[in-house]
């Protein structure tokens, strides 16, 4: 059967590998475009958060291409993400589409709800070794993309010849997409990192900005108007605070095993957020507050928060960030995005923000 799943950043690459190796026919939704957004916002509730609308648009486009089964992740609150599946399923059924819909959710008292999607997932492939391999390769791909991305955005703002890093990045992603064994992927990562290290870089330290906020808005370049590329092109180093594999690790691997290695992003954020936000509020609210404090303490020049319009946990964070900005004297820019957001206004704001940071730094150097 033809299976599909919604986009988020580069999740399509490991996702494709995983389902393909489990014996599914995979239909990746077409890349997110204006059409996706239009479809999504036409049928989704007006005040639902933006990622739900994009998800819905992805699903409609994939169903039009012949997808028959939809898989997605879910949760049990308090953020609205846990309800995405139910709402999207209802809307698609009302639109008259015929499909099966499965939501992976943490166990919450109902065995059937928990195991049904898992049984469906493995219905073509029962060989445990093969399943393990499918997961392993998909995971390595995801990890590889994240590792390379981290280095790329460190080098990009420093490069002497504009465009060098971006070209290398794109070719590396293309290679990872094709790779079909763990060793190839590891080789690509090592090779890319080596090549990145050879790129000629400028001497001066670039402005440093931490990118915090809601996970979808941070990870999906279409949603944040290629924020990372835009800033890197203008010589600003962007430190993204959320990576999909880090996040998944924290969600999937039990705390006890993980703790040997390092403390998780959530735990760490909680410590930093102390005094500003003293309890988790769902979504990435506490991570946003915590990482803002962390990078403010680390001497970063600025923080940018991105969030979808009406996102509940981020609204809590947004109302707290001004206090952090005051206490640490660090400029914080909040960008709220929905289907009506225009690029021109965002560019003006970002440019002004860069000027502000530049100004502040030159002042510091003089003093």
């Amino acid at each position, binding site marked *: 059967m033809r299976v599909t799943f919604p986009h988020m950043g580069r999740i399509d690459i490991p996702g494709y590998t995983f389902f393909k190796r489990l014996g599914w026919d995979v239909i990746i939704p*077409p*890349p997110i*475009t*204006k*059409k*996706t957004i239009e479809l999504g916002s036409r049928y989704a509730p007006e005040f639902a958060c933006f990622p739900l609308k994009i998800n819905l648009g992805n699903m409609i486009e994939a169903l039009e291409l012949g997808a028959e089964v939809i898989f997605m992740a879910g949760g049990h609150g308090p953020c609205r993400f846990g309800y995405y599946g139910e709402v999207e399923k209802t809307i698609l059924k009302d639109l008259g589409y015929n499909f099966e819909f499965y939501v992976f959710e943490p166990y919450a008292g109902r065995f059937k709800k928990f195991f049904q999607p898992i049984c469906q997932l493995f219905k073509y492939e029962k060989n445990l070794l093969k399943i393990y391999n499918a997961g392993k390769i998909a995971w390595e791909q995801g990890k590889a993309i994240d590792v390379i991305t981290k280095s790329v955005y460190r080098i990009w703002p420093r490069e002497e010849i*504009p*465009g060098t890093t971006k070209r290398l990045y794109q070719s590396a992603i293309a290679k990872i997409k094709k790779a079909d064994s763990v060793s190839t992927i590891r080789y690509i990562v090592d090779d890319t990192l080596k090549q990145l290290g050879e790129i000629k870089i400028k001497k001066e330290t670039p402005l440093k900005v931490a990118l915090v906020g809601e996970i979808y808005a941070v990870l999906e370049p279409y949603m944040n108007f*290629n924020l990372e590329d835009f800033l890197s092109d203008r010589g600003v180093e962007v430190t993204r605070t959320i990576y999909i594999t880090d996040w998944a690790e924290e969600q999937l691997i039990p705390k006890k095993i993980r703790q040997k290695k390092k403390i998780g992003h959530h735990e760490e954020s909680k410590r930093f957020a102390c005094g500003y936000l003293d309890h988790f509020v769902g979504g990435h609210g506490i991570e946003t507050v915590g990482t803002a404090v962390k990078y403010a303490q680390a001497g970063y020049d600025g923080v940018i928060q991105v969030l979808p319009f009406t996102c509940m946990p981020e609204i809590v964070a947004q109302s707290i960030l*001004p206090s952090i*900005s005051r206490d640490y004297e660090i*400029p914080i820019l909040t960008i709220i995005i929905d289907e*009506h957001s*225009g*690029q*021109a*206004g965002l*560019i*003006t*704001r970002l*440019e*002004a923000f860069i*000027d*502000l940071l530049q*100004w*502040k730094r030159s*002042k510091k150097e003089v003093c």
Partner: protein
Amino acid sequence: MEKCYLGIDVGSVSTNLVLLSENDEVLESIYLRTEGKPIATVQKALNILQQRLPSNYRIKGVGSTGSARYLTNVVVGGDCVKNEITAHAVAALHINPQVRTVIEIGGQDSKIIILQDGIVTDFAMNTVCAAGTGSFLDQQANRLNIPIQDLGEIALQSTSPVRIAGRCAVFAESDMIHKQQMGYSIPDIVYGLCQALVRNYLNNLGKGKDINSPIIFQGGVAANKGMKKAFEEALKTEVIVPKYYNVMGALGVALIAKEVVVKKGYTNFYGFNICNYDYKTKSFNCNGCPNICKIVEITVEKEVLGRWGDRCGKWSQSIKRFDKLA
């Protein structure tokens, strides 16, 4: 030969030029309506400037700002492109180095800029809501049959202003009509409107910001004395409207251009000849993906100067010059 520097601010409503002398004095300022034709308006403005410019002055640097800043830069051969927030802040600092707050209300948008010790520490910009911008005041003056330049004077005649709901342009307008039907006097309604717009501005942009004096009020709407008074009442402190309030963006970018040119030593300015060139802009839809971006292309004598509007960079980055300019 005297050196001078040019700042051009091309917004959606007005196009402003400021010519600055070597010691930062304003030699000339020009204010024109853009009327949807940014290139033609820039050419027209340059033409006027050329006639007014004494023969012993030479333009040694050009900067552009405003929503058509990249377009203008390509057309005139600019030395720097700056967003309007920074440009306004630089201009305000030039007028008063101690300035703490800049209130800027233009034709289509409004901004607040917070400064401390001569640097910008925070800002906000509103581009979504039309309430409180110049275009909205224009419309209302039109509806009340008052010339826009008299609106401020009329507002000052008010004795007991009417409370008007100002959260949204549509609400404000219907509420104003309602109050007119109830027979309130025109000055009271006009000043009530000013107060509503100020309330809206402070609620919208001023929220959570430390608004300290000195406060500079600039942009086209600063011409309206009623707005100035309403701001002073709401903030309980003096609000300064500088002499060149309506061309501050251009003034700011002229200052920046001067700085840039002094550093690099030469200008890219094409000269006044460009007034005679025939710039052609065309737009087409790119069918490369379902985004169907509208691409704008500007050409002169069949040479492509620039392209904008694509999300993926396929068109804009196919021109070498653009990389340098952006």
